[in-house]
């Protein structure tokens, strides 16, 4: 009677849902055919990457200039070279649950290779495993997941190499008297950040760095504003701070900007991982003596080639596999499926004008 209209509505909705779920019968094949044979049109000649592969880049967040360089100036170029089709997609904020949604979408679209920089080493594993079961190859770059969820990890530089370089740079900048130092990191769960910080702490225990004391680690979440304010907070909370290490391009740029406009310019040393374009004026005005990085475009380039090689069956990701990455040359897969791009490169006043990225 009086509830009939509502009941009718509920019944319609329920019927609809049931109809949909009955259509959602899962046959054992499942989904659209993907896998090493799915994307290609031509078969692979021995040693070359198949053409027509679908490669998708999924960075931590899309509105980040570092990933804009690595994906669009590196990955896209590489994919064009071996005749694949390139897309870049991802969330606008660096959140793992948003990345899961995109992984699911890419898997449904039959992507052959997903190149992802993980916001959290565990949270996206489930989605990646499901994508793998549908035939996609997973390559992580910049920030890794648990090794069992991916096929290869393209590491921009070895963890120890980065840590050594950062500690050496801050030690040189602070001077032989030593003092208190702090780290301004990105997000607290970023795999790469935590690996580097742990290695830096180990490096600090060496006798030559006995005068350096790490007093705080703060997180700027890879947001310019927050990093700026965290740098400010560090200096207020630790009056004797002598140096800041910020192993993230957003963080080091924000810290440099704060220091150079404050009374601490030149008194508190700064180093980190930064891009030449952002750091140029601060190197020249003395806020930052030297910093390190690699070429993010090379990272994306290598990741694309690695993914292409995987999807073409040229390598399987086990230790010892070798493949060629276009103009970068030959690379060998190391332990745990890790491929190393190279060593970090130090930028300072003498060479910073030679670069444009």
């Amino acid at each position: 009677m009086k509830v009939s209209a509502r009941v009718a509505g509920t019944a319609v909705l329920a019927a609809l849902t049931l109809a949909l779920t009955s259509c959602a019968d899962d046959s054992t094949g499942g989904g659209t055919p993907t896998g090493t044979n799915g994307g290609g049109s031509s078969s692979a000649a021995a040693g070359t990457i198949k053409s027509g592969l679908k490669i998708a880049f999924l960075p931590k967040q899309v509105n980040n200039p570092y990933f804009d360089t690595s994906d669009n100036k590196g990955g896209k170029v590489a994919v064009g070279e071996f005749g694949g089709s390139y897309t870049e997609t991802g969330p606008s904020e660096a959140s793992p649950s948003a990345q899961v949604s995109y992984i699911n979408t890419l898997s449904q679209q039959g992507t052959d290779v997903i190149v992802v920089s993980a916001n959290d080493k565990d949270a996206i594993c489930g989605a990646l495993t499901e994508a793998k079961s549908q035939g996609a190859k997973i390559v992580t770059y910049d920030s890794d997941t648990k090794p069992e969820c991916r096929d290869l990890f393209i590491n921009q530089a070895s963890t120890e190499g980065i840590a050594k370089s950062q500690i050496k740079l801050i030690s040189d900048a602070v001077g032989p008297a030593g003092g208190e130092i702090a780290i301004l990191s990105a997000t607290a769960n970023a795999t790469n950040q935590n690996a580097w910080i742990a290695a830096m702490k180990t490096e600090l225990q060496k006798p030559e760095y006995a005068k350096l004391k790490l007093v705080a680690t703060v997180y700027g979440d890879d947001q310019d504003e927050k990093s700026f304010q965290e740098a400010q907070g560090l200096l207020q909370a630790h009056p004797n701070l002598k140096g800041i290490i910020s192993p993230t391009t957003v963080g080091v740029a924000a810290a440099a900007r704060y220091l150079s406009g404050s009374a601490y310019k030149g008194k508190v040393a700064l180093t980190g991982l930064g891009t030449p374009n952002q750091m140029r004026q601060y190197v020249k005005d003395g806020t930052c003596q030297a910093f390190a990085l690699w070429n993010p475009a090379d990272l994306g380039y290598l990741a694309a080639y690695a993914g292409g090689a995987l999807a073409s069956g040229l390598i399987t990701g086990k230790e010892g596999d070798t493949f060629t990455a276009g103009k970068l040359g030959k690379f060998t897969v190391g332990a745990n499926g890790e491929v190393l791009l190279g060593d970090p490169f130090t930028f300072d006043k003498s060479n910073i004008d030679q670069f444009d990225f």
Partner: protein
Amino acid sequence: MITTPAPVRARGAATFARRLLVARELGIALALALLVAVTTIRNPRFLSAQSIKDLLLGATILAILATGQAIVVITRNVDLSVGSVLGVTAFATGVLFKDHPGTPIVLALLAGIGIGALAGAVNGGLIAAAQVPALVVTLGTLYVFRGLDYTWATGRQVNAADMPHGFLSLGTRTILGVPVLALFAVAVLLIAGFVLRSYRSGRELYAIGSDPDAARLSGIPVGRRVFAAFVASGALAGLAGVLHAARFGTVDANAGLGSELNVVAAVVVGGVAIFGGSGSVYGAALGAALLTTIGSALPVLGIDPFWQRAAVGALILAAIGLDRVLAVRTARRLRGGRARDA
């Protein structure tokens, strides 16, 4: 003889109400002073010139946003899209300077305010014309403006190196130790406070917030006033965006993300009742200063900075509770006066 006590009592109730308002703002000022004192005792560097400069700079943008929000909240509405408007104008400023390096700063300021006012007009138009609740509309425009910002920016970022030096120095220069940006906030505050107190259209905003139906019936053009309030809020958010670009230098599409909560918190803590009809922009600015200081003071006091968010939430709850107690007491006083009159 019988009638004389009544006006005295009514006047007494009105002065009581006004005294309460002042007491509310004084209360926040007192809390602020107490916090600064305690923190300085713990670490004298907290009151160093650099530190004060940082505090004032940090509070400036929030204070400007809070001023605009207060105007809207007084009319019993809310504007959740201010963060997105700030983001759009900050990025617009960056792009303007990057593509046309010779632009005078005044032009950039006007452009930012203009864009903000336009956004506010969209909000105000929807709310006044379609008579839809502000919460929903500004929630929607929060999404829409931010989405437009992202689409326009497409991952780009304007670096501090691309901005003219004169503009960036706005963010760091001081006059007699007071940062130039803070002077902007003070000017905005004084103008807004003056209009709200001394102009009829300003007073009418309070009437609309107290009882919109009564206001409409007594001839106040409610739709037009609410529209103007949202335009003002948008314009101030636009100004805040330009100043944000000056302060931080590097702008991308994420500027101002999530700042709506802080703005509403500043306004509520500052004594502007969320139910409308009372409060002042001075209180809102004080609330902004208090929240900013808490953020800086916590690490100095050695309290885990993770408590800051919880502290802000607890403050909002305390402020709302206090407002409620005061409102009940005022109503009782007013009722007591009138009852005796009859």
